[in-house]
């Protein structure tokens, strides 16, 4: 029973953490929090699921295609909905409304075209979502693999920021003008960050599909959970995001057991507000603290 709870909490939590990592990738160079990120994740899940279920593609190709397509979409979003309003006022909050509008457009178009019916996605071979024969617990091999993969991905992303490109992205995050003087093109960095963040969102969506099923409602829920993970973990910290994701996942799983699933969001909001009140910068120190 406890093992079930921990594993399902960590599985959901890893996904929330990965959504938050996606937020971080986009946030760093542009200081923009993408309100359509949840829908990018949803698109990745739906896209890959459709290619596999209806066009019978192998999962590797379906995943790559979804990542490329969603990455391109995020690139376009940055060009159309973000750069334009930032050019008008770099301190304004118009981008909140424009990225929110993009989210509404994506969610509704996908809903109209594909319907509200969730698509069941099988786990890629040899993994399975069936319960493993562990004494009385319903833990699947896919859940365990997902938790491990999330950890690997976060380590990989942190490594990436130690590369030359990653350092350039961090320099842009720190001081756009100074980075420009060093020969870094902030516009290119932010374009590529958005494309990368979009592809990462699609990957997250693909990973989520076997446990959560692919459906249009995925976007809204993951936006809020991802935000909670990013805020609790400390914006910009990928390690913090994963830990915070786990905390949320475990809290949620226990709340569902002790209270009722309907109180999940309420409990999460309570946790977020408490953390923001006590440690506004999140549990792992973050970029936010430095902008004061």
């Amino acid at each position, binding site marked *: 029973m406890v093992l079930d709870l921990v594993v399902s909490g960590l599985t959901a939590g890893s996904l929330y953490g990965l959504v938050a990592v996606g937020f971080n990738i986009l946030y760093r160079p542009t200081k923009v*929090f993408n*309100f359509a990120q949840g829908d990018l994740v949803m698109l990745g899940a739906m896209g890959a699921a459709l290619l596999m279920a209806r066009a019978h593609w192998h999962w590797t190709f379906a995943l790559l295609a979804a990542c490329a397509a969603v990455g391109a979409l995020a690139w376009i979003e940055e060009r*159309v*909905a973000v750069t*334009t*309003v930032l050019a*008008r006022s770099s*301190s*304004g*909050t*118009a981008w*909140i*409304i*424009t990225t*929110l*509008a*993009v*989210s*509404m*457009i994506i*969610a*509704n*178009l996908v809903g*109209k075209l594909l319907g509200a019916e969730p698509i069941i996605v099988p786990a890629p071979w040899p993994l399975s979502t069936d319960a493993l024969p562990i004494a009385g617990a319903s833990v699947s091999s896919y859940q365990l693999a997902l938790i491990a993969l999330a950890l690997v991905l976060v380590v990989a992303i942190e490594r990436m920021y130690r590369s030359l490109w990653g350092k350039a992205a961090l320099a842009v995050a720190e001081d756009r003008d*100074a980075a420009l003087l060093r020969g870094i093109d902030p516009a290119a960095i932010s374009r590529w960050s958005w494309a990368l963040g979009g592809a990462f969102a699609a990957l997250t969506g693909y990973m989520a599909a076997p446990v959560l099923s692919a459906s249009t409602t995925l976007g*809204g829920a993951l*936006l*809020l959970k991802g*935000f*909670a993970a990013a*805020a609790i973990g400390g914006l910009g910290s990928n390690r913090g995001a994963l830990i915070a994701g786990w905390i949320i996942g475990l809290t949620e799983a226990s709340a569902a057991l002790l209270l*009722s699933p*309907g*109180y*999940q*969001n*309420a409990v*999460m*909001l309570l946790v*977020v*507000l408490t953390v*923001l*009140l006590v440690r*506004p910068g999140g549990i792992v120190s973050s970029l*936010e603290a430095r902008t004061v």
Partner: protein
Amino acid sequence: MDQTPALNPTTPPAAAHATAWHRHAALGWTLLLVALALPLAAPGTFTLFLATQAGAMMLVAIGLNVLTGYAGLVSLGHGALVALGSYTTALLMVDAHWSFWSAALAGMAVASVSGLVMALPALRLSSWYFALVTLTFSQVVTDLAVEWRGLTHGFSGVVGIPPPSIAGRPLTPAEVYVTVALCVVLAFIVVRRLVASRFGRSMVAARDNPLAASASGISLWRIKLFAFFVSALLAGLAGAFFAVQKTVITPEDFGTDFSIFFLLMIVVGGLGRLWGPVVGTLIFFLLPELLGPLQSWRVLVYGVALLTLMLYAPHGVAGMTLWRRWRAAAPPRDAPAARDLDPPRAALALHIDAIAKQFDGVVALECCSLVAQPGATHALVGPNGSGKTTTLNVVSGFIAADSGRVRLGDHDLAGRPAHAIARLGVGRTFQTPKLLGEMSVLDNVRLGGAAAERATALEVALGLPRSARDARDGTAAALQLLRFVGLDARADDAAGALPHGQQRLVEIARALASRPSLLLLDEPAAGLSMDELDRLGTLIESIAARGTTVLIVEHHLELIARISRSVTVLDRGRVLAAGTPDEVFRHPDVERAYMGREGGRPTMKRRSS
């Protein structure tokens, strides 16, 4: 414009202008009353039903415009505040048999208090934290409305909500409509007064230029909280009307789309425009009729409309230039009485004692000490990166020093936030002028005097005498200051339209508006012409002569030599020399470090401070 020539040759132009203006206003009010009476004349009850609903929505939109339009905080959870007001009113009326009026008050209280608890932690952080917390909040409220069956009646909602009654007699739908319309007109008037007062100026400053707001003594956190409180009260009131108008409320009425809907209304109408929410709501109630066949594509249409408007018409319908000619000209103003500039509140000396500051291990200030006497100008000079601006930022509270003390008279400034230091009597300017470009020059200066105004929000809302006195005195003082810096002729122009040199002068006038004991000037001469430079020198001399302590960071040594009584030279975060201008500029170390003389090895270190 409204420049009607004098009708009567004996009437002075200003008075004729005033009568024309009053006629303008009277016409506007008559038209408004006729428009409001229209739904009462319409046949059938459906128009009345829709008009009442539109009125309730308009209340929410007017409030949201204060928060999102003026204070710049995007709320994605206003629907939830309406839900709280609605549910509180409905449950108290149905289950506890309260009267509508006390239930509506309770609804407003619940909406604003729970809203504040939700908003408090997020208001200190970036604006998008607020947006996401409100979005989560709206989700939680609908979840709870379904889940907490014992209180909310669960999914089926609250049914049989009676109409409001006065002395035991229930109001007819027409009377309910009139009540709602009255509330909308009152809310509009209150908001109009608030945005024209220091509260409105503070909100816009917090939105567009937080640094300028803090430097003017405005607590960003408090003004945002205030804007949120006003908008939550109106949302709660609207919720109360919503409940009695619908007679049945269910959790489904208050989904996330419901919140987004209000955002769209004010974006369509015009963010931060007084008439925006009114126009936006009206468009929204006419549009569905046009969109009939597209009903199922509603949310998609919302999304496309939001994106298109934000990209191509960020000021909405009310912000379109074609309305400009109908905008009533401001009531005429008498020329300011010629009186002398007000002296500072107190003549206080500034003592800086061994302050130090590191940024991530880079030493910006190692040890800086200086004393500036009241009624004199003290200059801070040194190569770029020597810590001059850091010193100003520490004194004005924009940066906390790692160690050391700063005292103004008997006040210990160290550790206080910037707005609190401004309120203690420290005015400052910035290296690049931080004005509010769309605001008039006069309002920019009045922003600086915000801390000196005494009328509370309630007095402003009710238009009590003290708010009128604040407006009169504030305007007079601001005009006085503008005359002092030589810009009174440009008082009504948008500040952003002024050339750079004049913007600096406006910023100095703004810094003086709070009658500061200490004025901090950060490179005021940069980019000025010789002529402007000369006038700046005279200006600073007369500011100091009135008893203000002036601390100036400047590279222009002739100006320094002319106006300052004492000079401190900084080099790499340390005091290199201090004394009178003559002593200091002849000091060999200064010549070596600052002028880069001797040995041909300039020690000037280029580092942005």
